[in-house]
């Protein structure tokens, strides 16, 4: 069962990287073989949880020992406009007896307790390594619980050992396709209904974009999964068009919804001014093609013109301060080129960008944007990164939290642009915020103080007593 699913998501026809592979390579899947003692990153369960936890009104129940939830809960910045249930940590916290006798009954009782106490619209049950090894059949337990309590209880079968985070994202998507999407009908539909797929509303980024869509009369039928409610996702098959954000993490949802429900989609980004405009254009183009009034496109152009001008006006102040400052950009996949373009828009010089998770197509786009001699970094060890920064080959590093201290310990400004970040950088507003944050980081007065040696280490030390 699970094996078939994994093969299926590895064989994703919508994935450009996958399409360039030979049959044999495709079979091996997109997970690189991990090297014991030299591996980093989350597991498939982690990926599945990241992808679905932003659904705010669902109880997310982790079936496993305390490590899987106890060590990790409440650590993501996905925001909600309503329910806070998604921030409650639920786990079966299985013990030795469960390992010996099986944990299915324990899981069933846990589901019952959650429904009795919290009565959520649905319970998502996440499989983890240990119960998978002892053979707990979470699909069967969820089916029995759904029937008994007349409530959707959804199995998310992505135990950690099957692979890395990215695979977990996709398996989570499969669970939504198999058990949630298309199971309910919306009260009403409009020609302006869209889905946004792969947007997690980190730090509230969706809310930087939603006012633009609201202004155009476009309704987000479902965002998968940022600030989503269960019913919205169950009804999302009635959207007219979809936008897929964030690389390939949820491409299987976008493609299969196109296949099953004829919802056309495009891949876009809300990072950077031109990317935001392009995405708005693509949304309105798809909606018009699906029957929305043609004047939507004119209204979209008018909005783009107004908002771009407003953003540029605000960015102009930063241009003289940021021109020529060198940025080292360490991030994954699609984010590389969209952020590179954005940074260049204000005159920053990108001295290197990571392409570890990027596809050939992504790399081509980076070359287009940065020129043929683009410095693409495939995999940089922390030691190399430290060397590059301490030799002052960059003025600031933008990366995820993992490498934050490499920059900070080298006394180089650093800005978080990954999922744990606290600032929102989407849309026109987000770009202005990103540039403001870069400016704040670069011009903070601490750097000159920190880089100065202690007086007793220099010959110019003042003579206090002479």
């Amino acid at each position, binding site marked *: 069962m699970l094996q078939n699913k994994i093969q299926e998501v590895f064989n994703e026809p919508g994935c450009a990287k996958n399409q360039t592979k030979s049959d044999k390579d495709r079979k091996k899947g997109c997970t690189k*073989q*991990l*090297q*014991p*003692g*030299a*591996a*980093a*990153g*989350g*597991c*498939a*369960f*982690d990926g599945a949880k990241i992808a679905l936890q932003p659904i705010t009104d669902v109880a997310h*129940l982790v079936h*496993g*020992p*305390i*490590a*899987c*939830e*106890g*060590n*990790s*809960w*409440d*650590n993501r910045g996905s925001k909600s406009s309503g329910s*806070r249930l998604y*921030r*409650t*940590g*639920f*786990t*079966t*916290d299985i*013990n*030795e007896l*469960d*390992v010996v006798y099986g944990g299915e009954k*324990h899981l069933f*009782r*846990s589901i*019952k*307790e959650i429904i009795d106490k919290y009565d959520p619209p649905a319970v998502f049950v996440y499989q983890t*390594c*240990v119960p998978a*090894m002892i053979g707990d059949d979470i699909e069967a337990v969820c089916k029995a619980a759904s029937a008994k309590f007349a409530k959707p209880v959804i199995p998310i079968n992505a135990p*950690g*050992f*099957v*692979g*890395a985070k990215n695979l977990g994202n996709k398996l989570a998507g499969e669970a939504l396709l198999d058990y949630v999407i298309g199971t309910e009908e919306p009260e009403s539909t409009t020609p302006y209904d869209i889905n946004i797929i792969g947007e997690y509303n980190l730090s509230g980024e969706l809310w930087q974009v939603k006012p633009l869509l609201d202004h155009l009369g476009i309704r987000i039928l479902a965002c998968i999964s940022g600030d989503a409610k269960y019913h919205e996702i169950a009804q999302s098959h009635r959207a007219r068009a979809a936008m897929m954000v964030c690389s390939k993490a949820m491409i299987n949802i976008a493609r299969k919804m196109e296949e099953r429900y004829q919802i056309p989609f495009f891949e876009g980004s809300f990072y950077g001014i031109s990317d935001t405009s392009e995405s708005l254009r693509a949304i309105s183009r798809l909606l018009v093609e699906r029957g929305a009034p043609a004047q939507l496109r004119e209204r979209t152009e008018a909005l783009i013109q107004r908002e771009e001008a407003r953003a540029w006006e605000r960015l102009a102040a930063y241009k003289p301060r940021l021109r020529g400052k060198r940025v080292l950009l360490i991030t994954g996949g699609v984010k590389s080129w969209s952020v590179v373009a954005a940074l260049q828009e204000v005159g920053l010089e990108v001295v290197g960008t990571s392409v570890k998770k990027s596809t050939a197509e992504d790399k081509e786009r980076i070359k287009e944007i940065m020129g043929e001699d683009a410095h693409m970094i495939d995999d940089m060890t*922390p*030691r190399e990164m*430290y060397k590059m920064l301490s030799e002052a080959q960059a003025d600031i590093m933008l990366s995820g*939290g*993992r490498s934050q*201290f*490499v920059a900070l*310990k080298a006394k180089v400004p650093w800005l978080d642009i990954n999922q744990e970040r606290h600032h929102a950088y989407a849309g026109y507003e987000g770009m202005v915020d990103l540039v403001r944050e870069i400016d704040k980081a670069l011009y903070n007065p601490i750097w000159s103080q920190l880089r100065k040696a202690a007086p007793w280490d220099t010959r110019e030390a003042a003579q206090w007593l002479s």
Partner: protein
Amino acid sequence: MAIVTVSHKACTVNPLKMSQPIGGALAFLGLAQCMPMLHGSQGCTAFGLVLFVRHFRETIPLQTTAMNEVATVLGGLDNIGNAILNIQKRANPRIIGICSTGVTETKGDDVDGYLKTFQAAHPELGDLAVVYVSTPDFKDAFQDGWSKAVRNMVDTLVEPTAARVAGQVNFLLGSHLTVADIEELREMAAAFGLHGTFLPDISGSLDGHIPDDFSPNTLGGTGLDEIRAMGEAELTIAIGEQMRPAAEALARKSGQPYILLERLTGLEPNDQLLDCLAQLSGTPVPEKYRRQRSQLMDAMLDGHFYFGGKRIAIGAEPDLLWTLATWLTEMGAVVATAITTTQSPLLEHMACQEVVIGDLEDLEARAADCDLLITHSHGRQAAERLGIPFLRMGLPIFDRLGAAHRLTVGYRGTRDLLFEVGNLLMANAHEHHPESWPLPGGDHARSQIAVG
């Protein structure tokens, strides 16, 4: 005396507990030039790593044997060997500390046996110390993992000896002590002219300093040679009940005596520690500590008004719970609710009616009428819902700066904690209003009708 109960819910809601392997890993992070490693899936390590990064705001060296599906089913012993060789090649540490996880314990890998064979087959790794500890996720809690890891460090690394070095004293430190606590103890020992070995010593590795160069391993901590020589100390001082197994292991190895101090927050326990150090060194208690003692007594006099009768709800691991509950009771407060993560001989002696081995949902349900909620950062949502003041204690503390530099041991640490808690209680003191003193039920209602 307290009744110890175990929460009988099937579903844990808002966990207080963290898992054993990362408790063990944190203990290994207190060793110098060490690379801790979890024998499990890569996610086991990633979750622990993110947790520690959020708490300490430091790079955390922590590796994984990266068990995939095949290794998980067929056994992952070869992954351990490969991992050791890889780590040795890439990071070249002096010590590798390995903790097992739920994944590998379910299969039942015989790691001890494998390591013997592996080390025999790789004589070139002779200088590399490897310490293994069995820490299944589905048993016990964070504090237990720490306790077992330190015991195994002693068992594996300390060299048996009958020799004694005058003025040499060992400190075995529980997982509830912070970087600042360890620095305070080091200063105390030095003030008596004693030379202390501190195990594990996260004050060397996780104190948040800027190293001169990049290191893939821990940036400091107890050195391997120091640990090997611990048998030569005159005395071992263990802090926290969780350190008893390590203290006993050390006593078995080299026959030296140990004393166990259950806590170091409060007046009396610090009197005991300083008295002990004075006797051991033959040096009178320095003037500095006499002054600090006097300051603490004065703080107790000034502060006790705000503690008296206050109802406190605490969620913490057993040794931290013991420290806080005992001290707060000594200040006149009432520990109304005590939730903990795992068994400990201290629990039944706790100064409250009941100790529950449970979660933050249990804590929240029992804290509604309390004046203060004390637990780690995950309790912030509960405190917000209940609308009562919140003190962050324990690990993780990810929504405040300086968790490692919180000092709560010694006279000075107790004084500072007293002020912090006292200020929270003072700031939230109830203001009186006209309806503060109503007559019993009906009387009040009738008088209103009469006036109206």
